[in-house]
């Protein structure tokens, strides 16, 4: 890397799409209209579990203004199943409805009102079946089965070995062991153990899922979709309709938030199916309640034991985690293995036994949600760490510091060595919260740390084009969902090619145009897609240097790019001049290519993480002893990001992550009773509001340029959310002596725990 100071990378430049967003010009899927477009509505199961004996859509079909009305049994002309782990999910229920809200029939009509009216003309004969709504019910002896048969493996190579346990509701199991945890726990001086629960929560992206599908006269399909994974969606549709990948085009306009809810196919299969049946473009836009019936976070119960030596050395961790993945696998099996893999957090643990199960229940399918399984286990381990500190009579900050994995140390055989400095994050967090100074009498402080692997192996490709006027187009398929990836990619290309930001255009993801990118998730876009863009831009740079070297008669190594020109010691050649020399006319362009594809390794999950996401959180809380209401007064987040490509956007990411974490810590839980979701609307499901936020919220970054991404960057954006709940609960425990094990920390739970508290000695 050249020692040249960075011009735009590392600077807090405003986002490139800010103007279109503040003027209302930014376009989201539901803002699009196609000629002749029909509007779709979905009839959903009122039962958590029911046999669907008959669906009669004839009256709906006959209604004027209706172009198509479909039930599961009609889908004989395509493969009606999809799913990234197992293809276990039918586009419309076939024979069985497995959760309340599962699509059973759908209509495409001239407008939404007509479609809605047509739904009322559909007759469904249900035979209600006994549902399993909780982990306990699903794992009970002789529990009703959510899935009777085995689904075929999905399209993920590394998940094709997944197998459900026949005759049970267990959809996937994951084990990891190192050393001899049982023996080490037996020999440990101090053993602590407890069980922790994490609730089902919904992403509540402000924009619910939406898709517009259109088949053209040649049989090719185009979808405009609010998806974080256009390329995964393309694979699902290609399989369903038996169409070559090249004939499916997925275009992604702006997303109104994602947070994992828009990973993998969601509404796209149904939209495409209806469009085919209606023989015209179809728009399918979910409502907020329907988003609650589409995906949620996998709830969990986690039993964890940790053994320490008297001197505070952590020697062993044993963990049994059950995740409720709901009625269909979605990406749940991978959430389970990924979350469990780092159950031991950022600590050195010689003896480990981890076991996890993904369990089907008759509830909304669980899938990816910011943190991807890690928040559930960090809640358990980081809470237990403070219990251990208490037992060992140690300061929780010191005990963590003593056991942190060091920079360069192995996490697991074959995986990437630790690439950051946890102790630096911890020290900064402790200092910012004032750890060594006593808090006010009515305040308590707590800390927590996290470690998370990114998806591996994964692939990102990018193309950078330099045009005859010196402007630049970046083709990449990282989805802009608010996190700022379009800005970050712009900065990277502008930096390498030494042009102003305004000269760079990043094209919206479009599988017919922008090259392959596996997914916009797992905090990977800056590190992986960003690196691909950097390599592609460097490819263009090298071509420019070669042109200049030849024409100026100077060795390429004596040339550099500056201000839109190749500069030699005594001369400069602007990009338009260089291109004119190369092509002999004012046309033609330079095309650079970047491919980041590290491939499979011997690491336990099949690929080595491209970076470790690491962060520390510190909370200062107060509690109203009368009502049990917990208030987070101050919060500090420190993330080890290698390099902040854009500190302004990064800070925004982490502030948002902390507040989203406060949601599942204090407020949020999808509540079920008698087989029904009780609070699947924003009227009753409370997400954090402006006045729920801490009075002081600071997000800091450790930047040692030690990441594998562009300019030493690592991924970020999930790390800030993960320590929130244990940091808050640890603070509450230190303030009140009360230890809560179930999230969210509602006033009622806290009040009861305070009442039950044995008088402190």
């Amino acid at each position, binding site marked *: 890397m050249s020692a040249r100071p960075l011009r735009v990378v590392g600077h*807090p430049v*405003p*986002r490139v*799409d*800010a*103007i*279109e*967003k*503040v*003027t*209302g*010009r*930014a*376009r*989201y899927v*539901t*803002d699009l209209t196609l000629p002749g477009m029909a509007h779709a509505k979905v009839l959903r199961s009122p039962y958590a579990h029911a046999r669907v004996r008959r669906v009669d859509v004839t009256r709906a079909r006959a209604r004027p203004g209706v172009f198509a009305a479909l039930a599961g049994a009609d889908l004989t002309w395509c493969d009606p199943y999809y799913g990234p782990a197992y293809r276990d999910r039918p586009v419309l229920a076939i024979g069985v409805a497995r959760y309340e809200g599962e699509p059973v029939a759908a209509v495409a009509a001239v407008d939404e009102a007509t479609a809605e009216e047509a739904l009322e003309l559909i007759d469904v004969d249900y035979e209600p079946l006994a549902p399993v709504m909780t982990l306990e019910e699903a794992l009970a002896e002789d529990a009703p089965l959510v899935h009777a048969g085995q689904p075929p493996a999905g399209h993920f190579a590394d998940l094709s070995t997944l197998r459900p346990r026949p005759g049970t509701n267990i959809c996937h199991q994951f084990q990891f062991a190192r050393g001899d945890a049982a023996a080490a726990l037996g020999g440990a001086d101090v053993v602590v153990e407890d069980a922790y629960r994490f609730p089902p929560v919904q*992403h*509540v*992206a*402000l*924009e*619910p899922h939406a898709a517009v599908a259109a088949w053209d006269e040649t049989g090719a399909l185009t979808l405009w979709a609010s998806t974080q994974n256009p390329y995964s969606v393309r694979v699902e549709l290609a399989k369903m309709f038996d169409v070559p990948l090249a004939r499916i085009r997925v275009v992604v306009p*702006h*997303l*109104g*938030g*994602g*947070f994992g809810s828009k990973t993998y196919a969601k509404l796209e299969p149904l939209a495409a199916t209806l469009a085919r049946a209606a023989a015209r473009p179809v728009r399918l836009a979910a*409502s*907020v309640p329907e988003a609650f019936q589409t995906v949620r976070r996998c709830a969990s119960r986690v039993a964890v034991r940790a053994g320490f030596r008297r001197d505070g050395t952590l020697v062993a961790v044993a963990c049994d985690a059950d995740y409720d993945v709901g009625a269909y696998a979605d990406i749940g099996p991978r959430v389970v293995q990924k979350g469990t893999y780092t159950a031991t957090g950022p600590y050195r643990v010689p003896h480990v036994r981890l076991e996890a199960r993904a369990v089907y229940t008759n509830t909304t399918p669980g899938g990816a949600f910011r943190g991807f399984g890690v928040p559930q286990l960090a809640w358990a381990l980081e809470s237990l760490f403070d219990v251990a500190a208490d037992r060992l009579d140690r300061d929780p900050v010191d005990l963590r510091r003593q056991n942190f994995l060091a920079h360069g140390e192995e996490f697991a055989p074959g995986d990437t060595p630790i690439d950051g400095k946890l102790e630096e994050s911890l020290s900064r967090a402790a200092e910012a919260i004032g750890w060594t100074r006593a808090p006010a009498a009515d305040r308590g402080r707590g800390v927590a740390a996290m470690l998370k692997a990114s998806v591996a192996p994964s692939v990102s490709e990018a193309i950078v084009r330099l045009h005859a006027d010196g402007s630049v187009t970046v083709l990449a398929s990282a989805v802009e*969902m*608010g*996190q*700022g990836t379009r800005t970050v990619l712009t900065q990277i290309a502008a930096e390498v090619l030494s042009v102003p930001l305004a000269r760079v255009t990043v094209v919206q993801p479009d599988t017919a145009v922008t090259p392959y990118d596996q997914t916009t998730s797992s905090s990977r876009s800056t590190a992986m897609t960003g690196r691909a863009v950097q390599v592609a831009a460097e490819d263009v740079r090298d071509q420019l240097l070669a042109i200049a070297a030849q024409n100026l008669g100077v060795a390429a190594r004596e040339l550099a790019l500056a201000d839109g020109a190749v500069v030699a010691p005594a001369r400069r050649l602007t990009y338009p001049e260089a291109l004119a020399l190369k092509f002999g006319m004012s046309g033609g362009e330079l095309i650079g290519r970047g491919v980041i594809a590290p491939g499979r390794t011997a690491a336990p999950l099949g690929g080595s993480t491209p970076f470790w996401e690491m962060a520390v959180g510190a909370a200062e809380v107060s509690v109203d002893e009368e009502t049990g209401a917990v208030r987070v007064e101050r919060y500090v987040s420190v993330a080890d990001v290698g390099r902040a490509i854009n500190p*302004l*956007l990064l*800070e*925004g*990411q982490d*502030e*948002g*992550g*902390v*507040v*989203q974490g406060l949601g599942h810590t204090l407020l949020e839980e999808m509540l079920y009773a008698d087989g029904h979701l009780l609070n699947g*609307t*924003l*009227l009753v499901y409370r*997400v*954090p*509001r*402006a*006045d729920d*936020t801490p009075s002081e*919220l600071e997000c800091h970054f450790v930047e040692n340029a030690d990441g594998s991404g562009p300019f030493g960057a690592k991924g970020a954006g999930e790390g800030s959310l993960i320590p929130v709940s244990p940091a808050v609960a640890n603070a509450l425990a230190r303030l009140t002596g009360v230890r809560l094990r179930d999230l969210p920390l509602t006033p009622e739970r806290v009040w009861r725990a305070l009442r039950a508290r044995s008088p402190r000695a």
Partner: protein
Amino acid sequence: MTIRLVVNGRPRDLEVAPHALLLDVLRDTLDLKGAKRSCDTQVCGACTVLVDGLAVSACTYLAVEADGRSVLTVEGLADGESLHPLQRAFVEAGAVQCGFCTSGMLLTAKAMLAENRTPTRDDVLHYLRGSLCRCTGYRKIVDAVLAAAETAR
């Protein structure tokens, strides 16, 4: 029925159904897509527009109620190419992420500043209770509103 209203400074005569919602009329009839539909139940504020200067949830406001009134949407906030101070503050403070809440936030903030030219941080936090943002954690939005209030002084 026919209603006569002013939208972003421009008089409009529109034929609307009695049950038509202002949000649909703005988005579909007038092609003003800046106001967004999210909760559809007057909770989130994504659909907020100003009617005679007051912030209303267009998702639950009948178009006929706007008869004879003046409606401002996010598209009418800038003066030509020159951004409104709130828009500029949102850009500079990093108060925009996905942007889905942004138009509602801007108009809510405008209504607030019309009522209270010198808000405190707490005033802003309180006023924005009816405007949800799932991306930003609100801090930069509040910063932006305070900065805009400062510039206006």
